[in-house]
């Protein structure tokens, strides 16, 4: 890996020019109405907002990969776990859910965690017969946990199942849930990292693949938590609602002065509010990451990445540092997950597709420039823009390519399958960049 990262002369104008091109793409999307662009600022800002969230996710992945060479294949799981936070923090409490079984459920979860901790301690402390003792502890803990948990979960799910059937939230401000989302993801990352780090490098990849699938399965099936596949909607917003803006005469007046109809202007205004919030978070993450990278800690991380053996010989605890960066990176991904659910206002666990939320993020990081925060952010927004626009451009391209073909089954099949071309295109892009420009669009300094 080290051979890919030697500093080569890169024009200092490269990043600003690329960012300018990106900005131009969004301006074109917002203003030009033709076969390529929608000409709607609402669409352009919608893409940009999701792009900014992808950029924060990519930042987390970039910390793990770019600073430490850790391959996290469970990004979707950490995103989903972060997305749980707005549901549990910002929603108002569900009437009757806590009295139905809330405290029993919390005790059950505590018993579950306590069992694991006790088993770990027993394994550490006991010298003889510890296998037997740990098995006994785990079995007893499991039975107790299920005895406490099952009736509680059933009772909560039976509480007004058509509307709720879940525990509800704490009714706290939704912005707080972003931080909590980060904490959730960090906790899960700590547990996985503790086991899988320090072994051969592929193991972390495989273990994170597993935890990702399990977290998504949990969100789909644990109805008491976030209603599972029945979805939780109307998650509170940190920004005004369109309908309120449209009824506010001052806002209508203000929109009129800019030449916009109230309906369109309210959508744009809301998206601009979200955009500012996301930009603040993104810039804060980049600032902190840049400061950390320039500190002695950052130099140590890069030293470990470039030569683990040498760093270890210098007395650095490689596994502990890897665990640290893995947890921090996952926390950033969790924050992005909470932001995404806040933006959508909807928790729909069926939407968490690993191809979209794990591997597309990886394409963003690799294309943008692993190890470089600005590169990862640029790659994320750019790839997200292309991914969305490929939905429009792909069929148009296939249509143009197949135009000379005679009408028939083959042509119809090709036209139908244009949507799948996106996957092939993204895979090829990843492979090409990995091979021919492994340092990405904006290389590490």
């Amino acid at each position: 890996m080290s051979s890919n990262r030697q500093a080569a002369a890169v024009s200092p104008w490269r990043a600003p020019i690329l960012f300018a091109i990106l900005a131009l793409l969004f301006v074109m999307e917002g203003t030009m109405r033709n076969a390529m662009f929608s000409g709607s600022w609402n669409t352009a800002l919608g893409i940009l907002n999701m792009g900014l969230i992808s950029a924060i996710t990519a930042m987390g992945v970039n910390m793990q990969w770019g600073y430490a060479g850790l391959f996290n294949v469970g990004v979707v799981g950490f995103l989903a776990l972060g997305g749980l936070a707005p549901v549990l923090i910002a929603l108002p409490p569900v009437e009757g859910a806590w009295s139905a079984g809330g405290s029993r459920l919390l005790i059950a979860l505590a018993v579950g965690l306590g069992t694991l901790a006790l088993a770990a301690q027993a394994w550490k402390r006991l010298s003889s017969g510890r296998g037997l003792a740990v098995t006994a502890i785990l079995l007893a803990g499991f039975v107790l946990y299920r005895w406490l948990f099952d009736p509680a979960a059933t009772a909560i799910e039976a509480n007004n199942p058509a509307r709720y059937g879940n525990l509800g939230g704490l009714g706290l401000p939704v912005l707080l849930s972003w931080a909590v989302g980060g904490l959730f993801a960090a906790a899960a990352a700590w547990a996985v990292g503790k086991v899988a780090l320090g072994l051969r490098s592929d193991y972390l990849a495989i273990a994170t693949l597993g935890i990702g699938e399990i977290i998504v399965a949990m969100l789909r099936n644990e109805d008491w938590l976030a209603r599972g596949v029945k979805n939780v909607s109307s998650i509170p917003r940190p920004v005004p609602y369109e309908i309120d803006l449209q009824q506010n005469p001052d806002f209508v007046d203000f929109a009129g002065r800019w030449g916009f109809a109230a309906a369109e202007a309210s959508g744009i205004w809301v998206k601009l509010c979200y955009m500012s919030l996301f930009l603040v978070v993104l810039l804060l993450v980049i600032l902190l990451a840049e400061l950390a990278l320039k500190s002695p800690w950052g130099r140590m991380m890069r030293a470990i990445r470039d030569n683990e053996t040498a760093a270890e010989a210098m007395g650095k605890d490689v596994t502990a540092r890897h665990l640290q960066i893995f947890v921090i990176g996952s926390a950033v991904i969790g924050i992005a997950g909470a932001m995404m659910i806040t933006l959508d206002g909807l928790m729909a666990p069926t939407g968490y597709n690993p191809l979209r939320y794990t591997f597309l993020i990886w394409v963003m990081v690799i294309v943008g420039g692993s190890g470089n925060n600005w590169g990862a952010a640029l790659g994320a927004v750019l790839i997200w823009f292309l991914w969305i626009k490929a939905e429009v451009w792909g069929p148009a391209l296939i249509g143009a390519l197949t135009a000379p073909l005679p009408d028939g089954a083959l042509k119809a099949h090709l036209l139908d399958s244009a949507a799948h071309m996106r996957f092939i295109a993204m895979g090829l892009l990843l492979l090409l960049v990995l091979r021919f420009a492994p340092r990405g669009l904006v290389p590490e300094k």
Partner: protein
Amino acid sequence: MDILNAIVAILNFVVIPAAAYGAQLALGALGVTLIYGILRFSNFAHGDTMAFGTAITILVTWALQAAGIGLGPLPTALLALPVGIAATAVLVLLTDRAVYRFYRVQKAAPIILVMASVGVMFVMNGLTRLVIGVNEQQFADGARFVIDVRSFREMTGLAEGLALKTTQLLTVVIAALVVWALFWFLNRTKSGKAMRAYSDNEDLALLSGIDPEKVVRLTWIIAASLATIAGVLYGLDKAFRPFNYFQILLPIFAAAIVGGLGNPLGAIAGGFLVAFSEVAITYPWLKIAGYLAPGWQPEGLLQLLGTEYKFAVSFVILIVVLLFRPTGLFRGKSV
């Protein structure tokens, strides 16, 4: 106590499905472990290689069915299988030439190869979607059952029925044949010995005049065959849906790691271990408890874990092995 009925129920709901599933996992894990042994990286594209091979086989099966060619009681897919294997082998050889060889020559870190395999996974996933779409496809034909529930009841007079699907029996038989052929090849032929030598010690193998590119090509062809066979058997037994083949990646990796990456025997043992644990832990034991302890009436279904969490079983097995024996039960590679 009704031991006979209990045994039949266990056979019907646990042993037979788990044996078939275990055989499919074992074939998949063999492919992963061979790639790991020779090329030294975990191939994330293996699930999608299986899906691609199966998709091609399904297309040929449909063509054969349309032409009225069949195998009588056996599924037509068996006739189509060689075509699927050939197509998949060509695809993976092209992939190796275009993608992996560059990093091999460079001696890049294994994690870069893993990353490249993710790119390959994306492309293969898109290819499969392009070829056959994202929907579920049924392609099993021929006789459905070797033994069905009713004739078993009439034959034995037991209350509990037992069904053995043709695809389940076929899976186990074909897997046994394939494994026998693979071990014969690895242990008895010159090419097989070259592969094992290369896996054990690359430098020594090079010094002995083994052509590494030939070994790598052979490995890819074998891995593609194993993947296609495993994929087709899985598709016949359950149903073909491209996304399932991505999800099966985790149990397959768990099986390969449990057995020890790079160790073929371990992959087979790991496949069956993962499959039996998965089925046994997600099966509701209420019925069997009813036979064994008639007086006892438990509240729940006696199911340790819901079927929706079956992947958690592979994950827990994986974690336990990583914690206590990171090289696997059968001592795989440690690098």
